[in-house]
């Protein structure tokens, strides 16, 4: 039988936590990427470490979107789901993860569970799912695993991997090899047992699910350059190493921590050190100390950690200490949604400190950029003698995608520690009047002695309360941003350079926005998009670009008021964060649509919003 060709498919594996669904999905994603598909995977993570079994809130798993072109986001509703129990599907359904016709491959062990209560729950759920339009196949997955191993709770995931590899016509040998790689270092027994489960699953799908046999053609746009497959946090870690940094000083916080976990493993080989500080305040202070002493340093955190760091960020701005700060944004305020995505920290990154604290802010739009922006940030921090904040988010942090392997070179690395003699005629802040830039002495340099201070200071770093000095030094620090902006080019326009509507995005919504825009363009809409990587300073040319469109709208994952909601007027409407910045900077009447559902925006959702706004616009202009 020939497999059916599909341009793309969205697969989910959902289970209780601890059943290995994520490992199964990651491996499946890697195999698919190796076979030349575009892939994006994202983990479904419950908030608790060990949530109660068989509950909707305990849903733990993974979504894999694979296709025959580059995949840049999680996509819309799923096509095929493997579920280890029926209860976990409820929360996915509530999240709108499935549609009519989504195929559910459900382990039927609960039908004959010893508890009659569980039996009934199971029957009820299956009936409800079918009413909902899902195509449910009840399969003896557990039973089939029992034939291979004594305890299928461990290993069922590899059985499912086998099933998926058959369904999507993956190279079987590659699957078996991938298992050997996944369990590398474990006992041979463990590897062969998992490979047996894999074989059994493969055969099971061939026998029981013959009708589900698909072929996803390889990407044609695939480049020949070597690729790596990682999530965004690992990419951040690789960026830290590629940039030649020596220190990461951190305090654990979800969803940022895994970047430091990764570095703790590999960083020492590059001479680096991960310092787990007593809190986020100490973490950044430690990094500032190291940077002051001439060693490039970075601190990686998430929203609540950023809040604690603000006073030190201001110190780094005031005293012009190069520093890279990575903020893997999560849902806020307060403890908020620790494991979920939000783009809620743009304004606090811009304005969170006391007084005027100009700094560079970058936002990674892809997993590759999680790596390259750290390298860029390190360079900018040093050249502009300032902290640089790199914003990523939970979506990038846990999303896995193949990306072009960076070609490492020496000029990515931090320069070696300079201990040459300082020219004592040059003050510690020898601000160039035009650019605000200056060179800094490093402890150990003879004749460079100065006292770095967060107090208002002169060129010589002497404490000064003089009004003119304060005005001057504030001007010099601010000028650096204008200088940086003068070196940037306007953003690329995705689509035509003029039209009805321009969508502006930043961060991890990149792929979903472009996909939505592409879909609308194929229906004839005059819509384009730009995606900003520099948020402070903003990329140049925005006013001119905006003027070519009837309407400009941002799409963001943060809170904004809906203009049609009760009590909301044009005077009290609270705008999404980038929209607010753009309105101020360009004086254009930038509209926004944003939401804080805690999950990544789906292209379809964005498409619907934009379609509605386009309809309104066309009605208004009488077209």
């Amino acid at each position, binding site marked *: 039988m020939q497999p059916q060709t599909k341009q793309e498919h969205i697969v989910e594996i959902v289970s209780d936590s601890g059943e290995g669904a994520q490992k199964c999905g990651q491996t499946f994603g890697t195999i698919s990427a190796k076979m030349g598909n575009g892939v994006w995977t994202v983990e479904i993570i419950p908030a608790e470490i060990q949530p109660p079994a068989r509950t909707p809130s305990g849903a733990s798993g993974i979504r894999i979107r694979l296709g025959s072109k580059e995949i840049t986001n999680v996509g819309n509703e799923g096509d095929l789901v493997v579920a280890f129990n029926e209860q976990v599907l409820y929360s996915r359904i509530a999240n709108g993860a499935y549609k009519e016709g989504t195929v559910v491959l459900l382990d039927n062990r609960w039908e004959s569970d010893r508890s009659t209560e569980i039996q009934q729950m199971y029957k009820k759920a299956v009936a409800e799912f079918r009413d909902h339009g899902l195509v449910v196949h009840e399969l003896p997955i557990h039973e089939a695993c029992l034939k291979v191993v004594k305890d299928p709770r461990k290993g069922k995931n590899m059985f499912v991997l086998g099933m998926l590899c058959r369904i999507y016509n993956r190279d079987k040998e590659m699957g078996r090899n991938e298992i050997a790689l996944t369990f590398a270092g474990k006992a041979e027994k463990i590897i062969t047992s998992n490979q047996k489960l894999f074989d059994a699953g493969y055969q099971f799908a061939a026998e029981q699910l013959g009708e589900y046999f698909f072929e996803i053609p390889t990407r044609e746009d695939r480049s020949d350059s070597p690729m790596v497959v990682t999530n965004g946090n690992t990419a951040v870690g690789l960026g830290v190493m590629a940039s030649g940094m020596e220190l990461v000083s951190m305090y654990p916080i979800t969803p940022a921590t895994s970047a430091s976990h990764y570095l703790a493993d*590999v960083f020492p080989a590059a001479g680096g*050190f991960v310092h787990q500080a007593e809190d986020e305040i100490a973490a950044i202070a430690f990094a500032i100390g190291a940077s002051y002493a001439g060693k490039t340093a970075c601190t990686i955190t998430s929203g609540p950690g950023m809040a604690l760091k603000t006073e030190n960020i201001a110190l780094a701005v005031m005293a012009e200490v190069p520093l890279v700060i990575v903020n893997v944004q999560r849902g806020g305020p307060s403890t908020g949604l620790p494991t979920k995505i939000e783009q809620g920290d743009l304004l606090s990154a811009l304005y969170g400190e006391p007084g005027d604290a100009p700094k560079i802010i970058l936002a990674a739009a892809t997993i590759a950029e999680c790596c390259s922006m750290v390298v860029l940030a390190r360079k900018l921090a040093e050249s502009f003698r300032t902290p640089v904040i790199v914003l990523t988010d939970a979506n990038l942090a846990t999303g896995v995608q193949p990306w072009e392997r960076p070609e490492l070179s020496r000029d990515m690395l931090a320069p070696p520690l300079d201990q040459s003699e300082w020219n004592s005629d040059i003050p510690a802040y020898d601000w160039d009047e035009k650019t605000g830039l200056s060179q800094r002495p490093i402890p*150990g340099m003879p004749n460079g002695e100065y006292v770095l201070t967060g107090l208002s200071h002169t060129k010589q770093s002497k404490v000064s309360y003089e009004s003119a000095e304060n005005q001057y030094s504030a001007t010099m620090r601010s000028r650096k941003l204008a200088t940086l902006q003068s070196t940037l080019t306007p953003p690329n326009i995705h689509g035509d350079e003029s039209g009805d509507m321009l969508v502006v995005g930043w961060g991890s919504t990149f792929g979903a926005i472009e996909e939505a825009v592409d879909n609308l363009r194929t229906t004839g809409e005059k819509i384009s998009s730009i995606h900003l990587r520099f948020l402070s300073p903003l990329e140049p040319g925005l006013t001119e670009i905006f003027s070519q469109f009837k309407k400009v709208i941002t799409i963001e994952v943060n809170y904004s008021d809906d203009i049609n909601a009760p009590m909301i007027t044009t005077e009290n409407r609270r705008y999404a964060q980038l929209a607010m910045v753009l309105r101020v900077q360009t004086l254009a009447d930038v509209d926004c649509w944003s939401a804080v559902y805690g999950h990544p925006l789906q292209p379809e959702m964005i498409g619907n919003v934009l379609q509605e706004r386009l309809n309104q616009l066309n009605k208004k202009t009488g077209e």
Partner: protein
Amino acid sequence: MFGIKADWSLDIQERYFTLDDYEGNEARWCSGCGDHAVLATAHRILRDAQLPPEKSVFVSGIGCSSRMPHYMATYGLHGIHGRALPLACGVKSRRPDLDVWVATGDGDCYSIGAGHWIHAVRYNMDMTVLIFDNQIYGLTKKQTSPTSPIELKTNTHPEGASLDAMNPNTVTLGITNASFVAQVVDWNPPLLHETLKAAHAHKGASFVRIIQRCPVFVDSITKELQEDASRLRLLTHENGIPVAKGVEKLFPDSVEHDPSDMAGALRIARDETEKGIIPVGLLYQNQNIPCYSDLSGQGVETTDEEKIAATNAALDVFAI
């Protein structure tokens, strides 16, 4: 110290440093402030050690005492309130070659920076920590500090401080990895000098609580101690702070205390709270405690080639 070797030959030193080489801006503390004495002592210790000024870094938080780096001609990092210790640890972390000092106040260290204090003791990075304890918030004008005596009238407690003073030495001694804990008063220059010299020579984090005069806000606290030396108890031992005979005579109360005896150190420290007897000298020293700076400083010599190779090896793992 004058470059003359034991065999009377002249040691050819390219650079010889005088006190001038360590003196920074003119100190702006009030006259009679104990901080002046500490500053002068630090200048002399560096001069005696002939450390190149560019190799020392004075790190501080915020407070009167935290102005100290500005009065040194070395490198300095005048940070933010409470964070002197993590800033200093960061400086030392990848620069084991630098000579790191910390100047912090009783508010800066024992209150807002208390968390960092505990952890800095545990890290035991090689640095000299001077806690200027005037038992008051000086810079912000007379608010109660954690070490203010109970009933002290301050601007935040006009009816008198309501809580007993904290005993910082019992805290420091109680933290795992405490390796050098000493106490001294600012108005006894030879003792101050010997104490800071011993602290500076110690490898590890040396915590010296300096009971410091603030004649402007709490003149009476230290005046009583100056006038009645029997409130102080001098700790003597061959492994302790060297005390000249003339200095020893100034202390009516002195006991021999072996600085390797932790139980004894805790007992002596506790007497300050329980009996009002203030120890001066070396409470505890242990030279065998590991320094976190030895760990964090590993790999500082890694070459560019090695860094690139390590990063490539890391990338290989994810290659498809």
